């Protein structure tokens, strides 16, 4: 690209493309020290371009939501304490707690055969995010950003909203640019949460623009007197991108111009605080997720805490479902209407499930169950209106179509066009990958 420098010098418009090029050219000879966020070609055809992970920490009760266990035989067995009915053309069963999501059931691919290694929250939550139960490993969002880069350089590639744990956004040994950008951490007021350093009020916007012009003029002089140095070219590009992020990101975070109908549909600002159900403003999170997805953010994780309703199971579960039902439905509806669902993979689930309660039982307390639980996927490349896998009659153990977190990870990477057994990074004497030394298997049965 012989004209690149001249172009940079002559004008600052058309920067998106040039910036991309500058970052791309650094990438062609990239070492870990010069990692890049520019979009990368995928080794496999990509069915999804981005992921929205609806993270449900605490362990959602699969038997009271998406895993229907009708009573059969003479003896009553654990099932659900809530009513289930069939919905949509697919006739999938959904509990009464998700009336809005149920309307979109034909978009869902329900994985009823999920299983994980441990019933400890922290460890299973870590395994869900990193594949590893105890040690420091990159989170799936970091792996995806590492493998794919990001489409919109004006925004971070990986955003985590209302994160439950720092590990959610950790790049661990991957280069730091693949780490997640946090917007609010567990329990923060999401209407005020923002990206670090994204705004400053010490100078007016116009002064800032003038200042940027001065900085870039200095930078171009610096570059001009120092031959062709990709580092310095990247600096110029990154300043421009950062500057744009200052307006793009706050604009995206500012939802005041959304129609009232939309805010209502997402239940923005509705905060329920009942038992384990924390006020997460999940509607705002889902709306932001849609806006980020539209803007080309690669991996978006939103969080509603928490599903660990031991005592007061009925009351707290109802509150958790009520907090998330309408926002999720609104998100699915909008993604679909805007044609985004086609290449956006939506993932719903938590670190494990819970044992069931017998209907009519006075007992109102549940524990943890990692041997069988439910996730659902929607959009980008997965079959819609399908229930894959199943647990045994009591819902305690996955028995058919078993999907481990490793398999889920492998499948998500596969849908994004990445080879789960090849996407790796050298660290401490060996190559590491998301699916770990045991590897995972792509759940082929659910691919379109």
């Amino acid at each position, binding site marked *: 690209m012989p004209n690149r420098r001249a172009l940079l010098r002559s004008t600052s418009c058309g920067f998106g493309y040039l910036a991309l090029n500058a970052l791309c050219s650094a990438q062609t000879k990239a070492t870990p020290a010069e990692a890049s966020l520019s979009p990368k070609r995928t080794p496999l055809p990509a069915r999804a371009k981005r992921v929205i992970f609806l993270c449900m920490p605490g362990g959602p009760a699969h038997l009271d939501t998406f895993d229907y266990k009708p009573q059969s035989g003479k003896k009553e067995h654990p099932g659900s304490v809530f009513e289930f009915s069939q919905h949509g053309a697919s006739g999938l069963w959904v509990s009464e707690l998700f009336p809005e999501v149920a309307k979109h059931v034909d978009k869902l691919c329900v994985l009823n055969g999920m299983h994980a290694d441990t019933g400890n929250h922290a460890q299973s939550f870590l395994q869900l995010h990193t594949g590893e*139960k105890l*040690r420091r490993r990159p989170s799936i969002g970091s792996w995806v950003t590492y493998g794919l880069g990001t489409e919109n350089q004006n925004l971070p590639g990986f955003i985590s909203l209302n994160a439950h744990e720092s590990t959610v956004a950790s790049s661990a040994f991957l280069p730091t640019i693949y780490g997640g950008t946090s917007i609010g951490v567990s329990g923060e007021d999401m209407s005020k949460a923002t990206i670090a350093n*994204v705004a400053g009020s010490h100078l007016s916007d116009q002064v800032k623009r003038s200042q940027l012009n001065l900085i870039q003029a200095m930078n171009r002089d610096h570059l001009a007197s120092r031959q062709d140095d990709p580092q310095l070219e990247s600096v110029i590009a990154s300043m421009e991108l950062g500057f744009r992020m200052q307006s793009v990101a706050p604009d995206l975070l500012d939802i005041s111009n959304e129609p009232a109908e939309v805010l209502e549909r997402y239940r923005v600002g509705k905060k329920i605080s009942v038992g384990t159900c924390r006020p997460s403003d999940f509607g705002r999170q889902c709306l932001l997720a849609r806006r980020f997805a539209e803007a080309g953010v690669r991996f978006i994780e939103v969080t509603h805490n928490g599903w660990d309703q031991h005592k007061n199971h009925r009351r707290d579960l109802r509150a958790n479902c009520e907090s998330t039902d309408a926002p999720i439905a609104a998100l699915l509806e909008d993604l679909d209407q805007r044609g985004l669902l086609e290449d956006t993979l939506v993932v719903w689930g938590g670190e494990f499930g819970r044992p069931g309660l017998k209907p009519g039982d006075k007992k109102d307390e549940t524990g943890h169950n990692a041997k069988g639980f439910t996730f659902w996927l929607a959009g980008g490349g997965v079959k819609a209106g399908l229930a894959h896998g199943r647990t045994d009659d009591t819902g305690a153990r996955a028995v058919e179509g078993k999907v481990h977190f490793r398999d889920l990870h492998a499948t998500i990477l596969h849908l994004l066009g990445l080879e789960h057994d090849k996407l790796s990074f050298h660290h401490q004497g060996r190559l590491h990958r998301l699916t770990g030394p045991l590897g995972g298997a792509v759940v082929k049965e659910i691919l379109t």
Partner: protein
Amino acid sequence: MIFTGLEDSTPPENPCLLAISSLSLSAFQNASRHRRTSTQLLGILLLYSSFSPLNAENPGFAFFEKKIRPVLSEHCYECHSVNAKKVGGKLLLDSRTGILKGGESGPLFDRDNPEESLIVQALRWVDELEMPPEDPLPETVAHDFVKWIKLGTPDPRSNKPSSGEENDPPPTDPAALWSFQPVTVPKVPDLQKSDWVRDPIDQFILTRLEAEGHEPTRDADAETLMRRLHFDLIGLAPTAGELASFRAEFATDKRAALESLVDRLLATPQFGERWGRHWLDVARYGESNGNDGLGRNPTFPNAWRYRDYVIAAFNADLPYDRFVTEQIAGDLLPATTADERNRQLTATGFLAIGYKPAAAMNQNFAMDVVDDQINVVSTAVMGLSVSCARCHDHKHDPIPTRDYYAMAGVFNSTETLWGSAANEKLTAPPTPLHALRDTLEEPAADSTKEPPPDFAKSYGESIESLEPVVHARLDEKPEDLVIEKGVKFSSEQFAEVKEGRIRLEAPIPAHSYTVAFWFRNDLDNSARAITTYLFSHASPGDKKQTGDHIGIGGTHDKSLTGKFYLWNGVTRNQNLAGHTVIPTGSWNHVILVRSGKKVRLYLNGDPKPEIEGEMDVTAPDDRKIFLGARNDRFAPLQGSLAEFAVWNRALDPAEAQSLHAASGQPRRTHRKALGWAMGARDKKKIANCKVNIDGNSKKLGPVVPRGFLSACKTSSDPPSIDETSSGRLQLAEWLTSGDHPQTSRVMTNRIWLHLFGRPIVTTPDDFGVYGARPSHPELLDHLAHRFVTDLDWSVKKMIRTIVFSRTYQLDSRGAASELLKADPDNILMARHSRRRLDAESLRDRMLQASGRLNLSPPAGSAIDDVDILLNWPAGEAKYLHEASTHRSIYLCMLRDSPPPELSAFDLPDGIKVAGKRDLSTAPNQALYLFNNLFVIEQARVLAESLLDNNPSASDEDHIHTAYQRALQREPTQAEVVRSVAHLREVFSLLASEGTTAIPQAWTSLCQALLASSEFRYVD
């Protein structure tokens, strides 16, 4: 770099994508996840049929073929055959030999008790070994195996594996093992262009350059060199004045000017702050544990001592071999002074500051700590990842599991002292710390009981003259006090107390009172959780203990052991502690004065209170005073009491002084602990380690004698480890023996990295088969050899040698375009690489520009008195990061909550050894430069100082000063014009030139200078 290997070496094939963390079943689970291919199935069927003719000849064989072989092939071969991707548990079931031999867990058959056979147990899932791992097979299968064992395990298969070759990994290319070869002394090449060369370094560089048909670039000018040396050696910019005088000196005598500059920089304390930080990256330094996996992140309030040790070691130019030895075995080295002892103990913090996964639900916790130590020692010093060998022989590097456990024995015989871990046992069990002392002598182990003080005759009168509410000598049973059982009075011994207590019934005000008494505690501080409660001002039986209490710490909290503390009950739970360790058996005089929230505790007549601070008053006024035990009788004193007095007012300091003076006893001071350091020491019980099969500490293999890596050969035999010590000293001796193949090369490479930006081996933490090969192997060996022999392991001398080379002094500009094209990564070093400032240098330079940089080191750390869990969300961590103008190395390096002023620029996470930092260029860095309050503040301060210092100066003058302060140079005329234009534009945008517009415009200009690439890059 995503899908393939490293830039200088492409590994042959898939490396060991194998478990380092897997539990016992990993191998089996591994293969069972892979769907068997049809060809494999076909192979099994063919095998089956090929043996069928044997059926008729032996009924046992028929049984095997019918009942046993199908099970083996269907459920076991996937992991237990030569065709398995990874053979589980070293067990092969596809040959007669294999099945008879058994695997890691031992033989499969118990012929006397077939039911007890390992293979049957595994099939039945009765014990830990559950096979196949997915689901148990029907009981009939186990029954068939029992029957088969009873038949004598008839097996028609051959003794050889049924197909395939031996399961060894492919042989490694010998060239890949370069770092295991002894360091050579390469002949320095003769060159034609010898006038260019200043040091043999240059000859090696030039030889390769010439061989590839290139020429070195021009030399850098004086200014470039001075800036480069300043940033490389001390991490700070030179001042404009320093640059001017250096230019003049350089013009007169280059060599002399450079020598005096380099020697001056090496001698400044800032050198250690720069190079110490490089080592802290390698030592995975952090001041908190980091999220332990369960969301807990305890602070390490004493970690900073190790930081200061490292800085001091580089400043003192501690020879590298000694530096390594102190960090691994400082506690085992002789010391001639207390300072030396303290320093060496602190050095072992290297082994203790690592990140630890939670102890809860982690049966391997102890071995995780050992693993961190093995990892940091081998990666930092040898550039080798030994950790893979925790679970299996290293697939490519010549590091067998046996060697791992030889080293594990060394560290398993070592007690790691990380401290209380915020008293959260689920994270890590609390440990003691190294006590730093002002004397070399160990404190007497068993103290004798001192006789009571010989009080002045007038002591009682003097006390009475201050008009106490009550005063009792306690040499006989007092009338106005209630004596609870277990107190004996005598005129010789005063009140001897054992499980007893003295009570004052009269109410004493809670907000203002004084209590004074003498006591002797006879109980050893290691005897129980709390050594004793001497005093309570509380209500009897109040389980919340509202009120004031004086205690002496025991084993519960090691930071309080033997020391006074004040506590105000469960509700407020405030603590104030002293520093002095009260020797068991000694008599001491205590005065506690409360005046509102203020509390003071005087000890033995010292006018400076042992404890002084604020503590809430927690209970109403009607409380009682208890002497000799807490209000709930907890932790009663075993010892003596005398001369007890209580006032219903706060005595002033002079009165408190007089109270002690009147006793006629000399003021006495006990040994004060100087503080605590994290570190390591030998365990009382020294033991070799057993192999942990698959890294599982509950699945043990043979014992391995303590030792080192067998593949790293030194000329003499490794030092032998005797039975009485852990072997850390011998480990250090072996590592620093001079001809250890990696130690000198690794450090040489690290030093080169920090001077050139690009190391000779581009993977400074990996000199193994998977690491990069050296770009200049002979140069590396030449320097490594010089480092050990000529330079006596002196890092400063090594730096001096390298920076005086011509290669170091090349320009980063002006390279021929063919060279740039041929060698974009500057592997040949025909020019100098331009480099970005790291996070610390960038912040320090901003503080330099604003004039706020405080070069004096701060005492301790922002968290040296904070012993807490930092839980997510990191709300608590926010306030722990205090605003500071000290150099960045002194900021609080909390893991998972790094200093916000540094975190945008690739700060290492303190979890992994990080010999080479990432150098990303990302928009979030721009955001930091645009909007971070620290940056804005420095710009504002710089702007203000321009305007304040010389109010009458012109805008042009101010611009000159701003450029000098920020970039240490004069602006060009064009730059002045551009800067003025920016100021004018800001004025017009703000439609004024008033009091708000002027500072804003100048702040904007100064911030632009700080955000410019020139500010962040060094040529």
